[in-house]
């Protein structure tokens, strides 16, 4: 991603005699334009981040208030089974759900872009629409659909006379959550990929088409490599999304309290720590660690994919 920063803006003028004056007023105007964003960014992004790091170094005591604790919260986190279990759960979630979702999104985007699909506009907007549904509503809705009382799946199994499947049992609930997330975000990823496909120059593959290459080969050998940056972007957003999973398990918890506990995902755990357990400092450490894990995961995936593509 850092490659995008390397293209410096073009100087606005080339006339020599007044160039330093113009440079100075250019710089002033530049600062004026970027300052509002940077101030808000500093206050509501960097400051909370630094504050989380600061808080995580303290510990509250029943007697004596808050005391400096060094890295105690972090050593506790690394040996906290509930946190680690949640973390491994979201890693597992990421490894299963994200490839399925991105593959679906990619196939749909390629199909819509292929020119051989009928009603492509209907598909494009139809598949995208769930993105406009809040995750709370999506989870409530799927919760009812999964339900054994009046969900259509229960209706169907009633009709054939078998027991209704339990989508919220210990073994399958993670898959049921993955299904909700896939439903919500496939269209969003599809649109990003589709937009990238539209911006490929057609010269790239028209020659291949004239040579008789099939649409499949063109899609796989020419189009997919050309939209690699957009695929990275989707991948990064998906990492962030998976690791901070919250609304879906938090809402399904009410339907399956014995299966989804308060540490089901790291984010749910941090929320419980801060607002039920009053362990604010430890919650800050968990939040900060979670952010760190996500950043490291994102950068290492970027690094790995970049290296593989350049070799």
């Amino acid at each position, binding site marked *: *991603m850092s490659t*995008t*920063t390397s293209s*410096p*803006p073009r*100087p*606005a003028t080339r006339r020599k005699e007044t160039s330093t004056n113009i440079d100075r007023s*250019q*710089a002033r*105007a*530049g600062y004026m*334009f970027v300052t509002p964003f*940077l101030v*808000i*960014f500093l*206050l*509501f992004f960097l400051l*909370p*981040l630094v504050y989380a790091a600061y*808080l995580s170094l303290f510990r509250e005591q029943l007697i004596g208030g808050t005391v400096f604790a060094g890295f105690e919260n972090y050593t506790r986190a690394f040996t906290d089974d509930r946190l680690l279990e949640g973390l491994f759960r979201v890693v597992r979630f990421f490894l299963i759900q994200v490839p399925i979702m991105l593959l679906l999104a990619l196939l*749909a985007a390629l199909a819509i872009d292929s020119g051989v*699909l009928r009603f492509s506009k*209907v*598909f494009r*907007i*139809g*598949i995208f*629409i769930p993105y*406009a*549904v*809040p995750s*709370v*509503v*999506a989870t*409530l*809705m799927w919760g*009812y*659909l999964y339900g054994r009382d*009046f969900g*259509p799946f229960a209706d169907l199994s009633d009709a054939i006379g078998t027991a209704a499947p339990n989508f919220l049992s210990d073994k399958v609930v993670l898959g049921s959550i993955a299904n909700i997330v896939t439903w919500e975000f496939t269209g969003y990823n599809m*649109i990003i990929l589709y*937009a990238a496909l*539209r*911006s490929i120059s057609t010269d790239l593959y028209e020659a291949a088409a004239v040579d*008789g290459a099939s649409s499949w080969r063109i899609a796989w050998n020419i189009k997919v490599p050309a939209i690699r940056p957009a695929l990275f972007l989707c991948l*990064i957003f998906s990492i962030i999304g998976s690791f*901070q999973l919250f609304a879906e398990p938090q*809402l399904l918890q*009410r339907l399956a309290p014995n299966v989804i506990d308060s540490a089901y995902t790291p*984010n749910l755990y*941090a*929320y419980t720590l*801060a*607002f039920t357990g009053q362990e604010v400092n430890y919650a*800050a450490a968990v*939040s*900060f660690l*979670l*952010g760190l894990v*996500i950043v490291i995961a994102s950068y290492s995936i970027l690094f790995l994919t970049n290296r593989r593509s350049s070799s």
Partner: protein
Amino acid sequence: MSQTASPTDRRSNLLTLGMLALLLYFLLPLFWLVVSATKTTSDLFSTFGLWFSGDFSLVQNIRDTFTFDGGVYGRWMLNTLFYSVVSAVGATLLAALGGYGFAKFRFRGNNALFGVVLGSIMVPATALAIPTYLLFSKAGIVNTPWAIILPSLVSPFGLYLMRVYAQDAVADTILEAARLDGAGEIRIFFQVVMRSLSPGLVTVLLFTLVATWNNYFLPLIMLNDPKLYPITVGLSSWSSQAVGGSGSSAELLALVVTGSLLSVVPLIAAFLLLQRYWQSGLTAGGVKE
């Protein structure tokens, strides 16, 4: 493979069928929601989920949704609208100003500052939510609209998109001409630049709007007065009552379903009406004259 007309036709039918299956997956749950919003609570349990029942009680359900508990649902709608419109307009304006500044001006630290913002795209918003809550409670602004709006003004991805967009869509020659005419930088931005940026603006506006409209974690922790809830937190509180209780709270079920449907209508309408703009805005990277 030969390039005659008939195999291409066949392929498109097959592909269309496959895509139709995919489309069904994405639209059937919403169809279920529409159907369910027309049913009474008892019909929800007793009739087949994917088709309408005898008595059509959509209007009654909508009326009940808006009158239950002193009409709190209407408030939640307005709160959501207010939070998301103010956040989206603010975030878009900040991103547009900043993106244009980073794209078109040379100043010391340009690349470094932009790099910091870009790197922050990877930091998840929810990792910041709890420390932000603690800061805001020190500042005394938890349980106010500010607690939702202020953090939602930061959109690093919006800034990135606007920078890429401004680079291509704003012609340097036009800027130079406007400067020679003696126009000030601010005037140039609002009268010339904003117009060239408009597809990108709509894109960032819509996506930040959705982000705030759909936000759940932040309002959940920031607000404890039900009068300030956005629709997501409100529906969640209704549904927890519907799950937990019996008797009168069972009636809440129909309201949760109808309320869910009503809450998704405005955004879907916005996306449908504005699709020409946001879809062209998304191709930002490839925009050439």
